[in-house]
């Protein structure tokens, strides 16, 4: 495969949770194309979230987990960096600024809307007030929530509706100008209208960032993504363009899952 268009590449990756003998992920190989949406689907417990959470090393918050293999991040200058080799806290912080993450439930911080979006930039050392204001506005616009929030930037983020909170979280991540954004079932706690808004947003976002999304909703994966990976019991069963996976899968197991015969 041509690595030129890749932003990330998972290679022979194993993952074992702390205190468990058997690996939860076995020999995973998965390319993440630049400026595309890659969806990961599979029944509960298949390891899709586990894999996603390895891509920004958020697993490291809980000690004792073991990684094997490589997860390479391709930099703009073509250099590749195996993120599993990062050891220093500083490097992990940088990784997380480059690889954003959105969670299943909206996670607004207990502070104002403005401070929520500015938070990551402040951490990254942006001090200039007008730069901050500009980037907050841009991020809120990019996340399609500027209209609803521009008059109440200083009120608490906890007052927003669930769908708005989730878009705020996206704005918060976008503001850091990440290369990759990881979405962990971002609409599973939302109503259909908010879900629609988030899906539109994702389609817009891929112009600027590469997106990896974990979803249990197969329609969402087929509507939204360019590539799909099907996982089952810790193995990556099949990866291909979304069209192929949904129309013409190569593996029987994939077909069974897509057609709803199990899972």
């Amino acid at each position, binding site marked *: 495969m041509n690595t030129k268009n890749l932003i990330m590449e998972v290679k022979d990756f194993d993952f074992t949770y702390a205190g468990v003998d058997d690996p939860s992920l076995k020999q995973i190989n998965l390319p993440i194309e630049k400026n595309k949406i890659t969806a990961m689907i599979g029944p509960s417990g298949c390891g899709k979230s586990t894999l996603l959470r390895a891509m920004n090393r958020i697993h490291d918050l809980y000690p004792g987990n073991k990684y094997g293999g490589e997860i390479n991040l391709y930099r703009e200058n073509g250099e590749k960096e195996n993120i599993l080799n990062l050891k220093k806290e500083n490097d992990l912080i940088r990784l997380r600024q480059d690889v*954003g993450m959105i969670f299943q439930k909206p996670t607004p*911080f*207990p502070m104002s809307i403005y401070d929520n979006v500015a938070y990551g930039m402040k951490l990254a050392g942006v001090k200039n007030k007008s730069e901050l204001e500009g980037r907050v506005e841009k991020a809120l616009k990019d996340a399609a929530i500027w209209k609803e929030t521009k008059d109440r930037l200083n009120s608490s983020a906890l007052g927003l509706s669930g769908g708005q909170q989730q878009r705020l979280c996206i704005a918060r991540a976008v503001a850091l100008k990440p290369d990759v954004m990881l979405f962990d079932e971002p609409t599973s706690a939302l109503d259909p209208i908010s879900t629609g808004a988030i899906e539109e947003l994702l389609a817009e976002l891929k112009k600027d960032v590469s997106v990896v999304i974990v979803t249990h909703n197969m329609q969402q994966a087929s509507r939204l993504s360019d590539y799909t990976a099907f996982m089952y019991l810790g193995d990556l069963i099949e990866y291909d363009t979304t069209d192929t996976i949904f129309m013409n899968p190569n593996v029987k197991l994939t077909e069974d899952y897509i057609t709803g015969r199990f899972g």
Partner: protein
Amino acid sequence: MGGKLFKNFSFFSATLSFFILIGIFSILFTYAQDSIREFGFDFLGSEIWEADEDDEEIGIFGGYIPVIGTMLSTLIAMVIATPLAMGIAIFLTEIAHKTLVKPVSIAIELLAAIPSIIYGMWGLFYFAPIVQSTFGGQGVGLLTAGIVLAIMIIPFMAAITRDAMNTVPDVLKESAYAMGATKFEVIKDVIMPYSKGGIIGSIILALGRALGETMAVAFLIGSVMAIPSSITDPTTSIPVLLANNFSEAQGLEMSSMYYLALILFVVSFAIISVAKFYFLGKKVK
């Protein structure tokens, strides 16, 4: 009808705590009447505590010294205890490896279970000499009382703060880490704001406890009716004065003791109410 009797007795039991509180207030207020009528609010500003030489039943009594002593020893305790308790809570919720959390929690809770008289006795024989050799003074005094008081309230404060911090959802912390925050930044910007009600509540409850603590302070504050001019000087506090002199007092002095007890009761009632209604909601145990 067993059911009716059962229900009525339950209701009677439930209302009992209400009547006891009313009872405490009315009894203290009634017995303090003589002193309140004689000295009024000036009682709080007067530092003289002397029975008349000829008539033990009368004299001049002012609560300034025990009131100040109570406030200062509590203040010292709070200044020392608050940062340490926060540190312990942070250690337990965010730093400690999970195999350590349980034993450290148990140790902290056992520290809270040790009777206060033991703290007093240990403080008098083991801690006071250290304070004396480090800071001067006579060993017993404000500083010693304040430090030992701090050791007593730390576990209590740490336990409530820890419970409050534990209510922060993991995913909220993860999303801050996912933006590149350090542990301290997550604590400062997410955990603390999220659980601030519980944290402030725990500080106020600990304050209430320190104000009313008797035995540990009785061993250590020096029990002298004098205004301290330095932090190591001995003085007294309301609970200590009551513990040592209440039963021998008579007449107006006795009434003044009730007055002091009333002040302590009302102040701690107010403090605990504020902590409960404004900061802790209904979930406090």
